[in-house]
């Protein structure tokens, strides 16, 4: 393993300005708040959290699709801002959730997969054709698929096309943002297996974003839990799933419904107050929903407790009560 992390995020912050409507005042939404992380080359960092927690915004910052408001993002040790787009495309590529929205409906499959090569402007036509055919075969698509339109493909086939397009430049890092959420269960397993094979074969690093914790446990080597823009806990996968330290992580794990009959639906212990990114509570941002909150949680932001491979932000973790 090389010493340079594949992805390094240093105190990244990203805010959005929302219009308050016709009569409201504009508000600032902090989507990503002081996030730092490092993903070693060859590993899979899973990012979990509920909708609106900032996980997709973080993915877009790491892909360089959005600039940071503050802080910086390094990919393979190089700063993203100011990086040449063609160079960046050879380093890091995305696979998005909805293969119905991420493929141009008017382009043929072969052209969609070839586009990153064409955009580089340094490959000859024959070479492009050969690489595309190879890659389509590798992701399990028949060669006659190249002439088809996305509408003629199933959801699973489209996601294979998106993966082929992401890998055609042989990047080092792939950001997978909910890559199987739109797929059926039987097809989800095919795509997860394919992603795992390709990672070993091409020695890839994945940033794997999902709301499905069972899937994340299966694919990730390390997991970061996001809540309202912050990483509240991060640890190696087995540690996080077996000894979660943050109450939010525990609630998330409690809400996973494994296919084991007779256990009933668990009580996750969270109230009805839902997180609002435009209105972040003072102190610990999880305290209004936290089943074990103490008085201090409502006013003082919890300290970061960092060890070699894990970190947690919780007052109770300090006291050793968690």
């Amino acid at each position: 393993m090389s010493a340079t992390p594949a992805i390094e995020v240093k105190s990244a912050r990203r805010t959005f300005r929302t219009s308050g409507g016709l009569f409201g005042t504009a508000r600032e939404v902090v989507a990503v708040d002081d996030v730092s992380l490092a993903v070693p080359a060859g590993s899979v960092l899973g990012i979990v959290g509920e909708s609106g927690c900032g996980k997709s915004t973080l993915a877009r910052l790491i892909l360089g699709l959005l600039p940071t408001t503050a802080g910086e993002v390094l990919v393979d040790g190089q700063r993203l801002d100011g990086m040449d787009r063609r160079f960046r495309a050879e380093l890091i590529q995305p696979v998005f959730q909805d293969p119905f929205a991420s493929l141009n409906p008017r382009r043929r499959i072969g052209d969609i997969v070839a586009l990153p090569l064409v955009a580089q402007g340094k490959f000859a036509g024959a070479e492009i054709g050969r690489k595309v055919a190879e890659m389509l075969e590798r992701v399990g698509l028949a060669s006659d698929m190249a002439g088809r339109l996305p509408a003629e493909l199933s959801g699973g086939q489209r996601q294979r096309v998106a993966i082929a397009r992401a890998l055609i430049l042989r990047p080092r890092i792939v950001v997978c943002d909910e890559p199987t959420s739109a797929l059926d269960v039987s097809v989800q397993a095919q795509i997860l297996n394919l992603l795992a094979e390709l990672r070993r074969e091409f020695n890839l690093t994945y940033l794997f974003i999902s709301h499905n914790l069972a899937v994340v446990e299966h694919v990730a080597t390390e997991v970061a839990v996001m809540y309202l823009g912050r990483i509240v806990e991060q640890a190696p996968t087995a540690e996080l799933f077996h000894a979660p330290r943050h109450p939010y992580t525990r609630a998330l794990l409690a809400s996973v419904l494994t296919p084991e009959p007779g256990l009933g639906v668990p009580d996750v212990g969270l109230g009805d107050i839902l997180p609002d990114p435009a209105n972040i509570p003072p102190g610990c941002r999880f305290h209004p929903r936290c089943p074990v909150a103490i008085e201090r949680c409502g006013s003082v932001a919890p300290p970061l407790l960092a060890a070699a491979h894990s970190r947690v932000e919780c007052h109770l973790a300090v006291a050793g009560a968690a």
Partner: protein
Amino acid sequence: MSEALLDIAGLRVTFAGGTAAVRGTAIAVNRGETHCLVGESGCGKSVSALAVMNLLARGASRSADRLRFAGEDLLSLSDTGMARLRGNRMAMIFQEPMTSLNPAYTVGSQMTEVHRRHKGSSRQVATDRAAEMLARVGITAPGMRLGQFPHQLSGGLRQRVMIAMALMCDPELLIADEPTTALDVTVQAQILRLLAGLQRDLGLAVLLITHDLGIVARVADRVSVMYAGEVVESARTNDLFARPQHPYTRGLLDCVPVPGKIRPGEPLGSIPGVVPRVRAGFQGCGFRDRCAFAMPECAAEVPRHAAGEAHDYLCRLAADWSGLRGAA
């Protein structure tokens, strides 16, 4: 055992384009029982439910050998007769509450309308009932919520409102079509827990449609697995998970990552190929193109086998055959 509350046999739905969406489905939902209809997209589970409610889109044709609700024959029921049942004795909730709530009316006016229409109650009585039901589904300050519009509520709250609205007239049967699919995991668990509690307390019969085997395991008393328009296996929940018989059910159970069952990094089980679109006139087993055990005779009519008490499946393989996962 008394007659099932909802008794469906030989239900068929064909769309105008010639797609056979439902091909002879049989489902029996007993009083006070949660029955899960599980399957992948396009397998006909939602269409089956819509066919029961007689809410199919124009151009779809429905037929059945038997379609009875509380002893009443739904096939011969007039449109007005059906409208009298719907929202009253049988209610339905859908996946995306935002699209099933009218954005132009307050929560209160939508909730009271159901009660005033079916029960002929006054505005005041209906409003009291709406506030009571909102409190019943765990909504605090129901009076304030009644005056709000759907867009002012979060997804979880909207789904609670939908449930409260469905229960306004004290139905005997609740059909819930993927009620938590659009929600976050923590909210999903809360809503399912709420539904399970209501089902128990009110003695409701629930037909729950889902693609999630985790939900099935945790809430269902009975399960029917659908594939390509047919119920391919039906059993009590414990029995289905302990002794799945149909190759599709077995394959589907292997596709789900279960912590502790499959080691991280090991490949998941998967079913090759994709769910077929079945045309009218299709014969034989709908799963045969993806099945590792398919034989030429699978193209002919497939027998329904029994695998113990109240457990049957649609496949030529004998009960407790070993294969994919060894002796199951």
